[in-house]
């Protein structure tokens, strides 16, 4: 296949990774009050770990090294202990009337969300410019 848009493979992979990061942030925000997760314990905050992948080189005579793309290596649980909140009327309260709530701070998640959306935007700008470069180059032939 011809590679007509420069650098599009890395950018596409990065867009995918940022999308997954956004998914994880939204999951954290959605579960800010979850006292009973899948394992019966309070929900634990998750975060993504990025890693770079060496892409298989398409043509051996290409200049430079093989392009590196990015992907999500794993989604890790944050090991912070839950916050104990006094709320005796809560169904999940213990004998002392304390409820274990997930230690998720909304401002922190918002900052993560802004970072993810800005990174997504930056990669979109790369796509847009790559397209503009290709179209401008093609317009050499027009008269």
């Amino acid at each position, binding site marked *: *296949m*011809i590679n*007509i*848009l420069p650098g*599009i493979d890395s950018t*596409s992979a990065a*867009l*995918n990774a940022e*999308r997954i990061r956004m998914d994880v942030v939204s999951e954290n925000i959605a579960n800010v009050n979850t006292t009973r997760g899948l394992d019966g314990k309070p929900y634990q905050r998750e975060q993504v770990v990025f890693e770079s992948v060496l892409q298989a080189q398409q043509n051996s005579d290409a200049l430079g090294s093989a392009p590196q793309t990015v992907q999500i290596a794993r989604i890790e649980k944050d090991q912070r202990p839950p916050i104990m909140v006094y709320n005796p009327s809560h169904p999940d309260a213990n004998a002392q009337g304390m409820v274990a709530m997930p230690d998720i701070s909304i401002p922190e998640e918002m900052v993560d969300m802004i970072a993810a959306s800005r990174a997504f935007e930056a990669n*979109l700008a790369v*796509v847009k410019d790559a*397209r503009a470069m*290709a*179209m401008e180059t*093609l317009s050499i*032939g*027009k008269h």
Partner: protein
Amino acid sequence: MDALSSLKLMTMPQMTAGVNNPLQDAAVAQAISPAEMQSLEAGASTPSASSTQPVYSFQNLLGDFVSDVSNKQAAAGEAVNGLLSGKNVSLHQAVISMEEANVSFQMMVQVRNKLLDSYQELMRMQV
């Protein structure tokens, strides 16, 4: 198959680019056969030299390019279908493959324009 008849592949039903009538004329298509173009470029006086060359002629290159563009169109269609039918295709993948198809189609149109220009230039030549 020569250069111009491989360009005829461009007139797939979903593409709107039309092909001018002169292209239908086999004699005209023969007028700038790739073997002649090669011998013109290389300045080789013996046409047998180009016929013994096995694979990478200009017509193969052009045919590969046209089928590449066609593949990109098909991939874009598949991505959009996957997105709309709720498969695991994200929005940016679909849009990027559409853009790739668009840009490579524009590239093919430019190549066609150049070929037609050079053909018309030849036809205008005084003998």
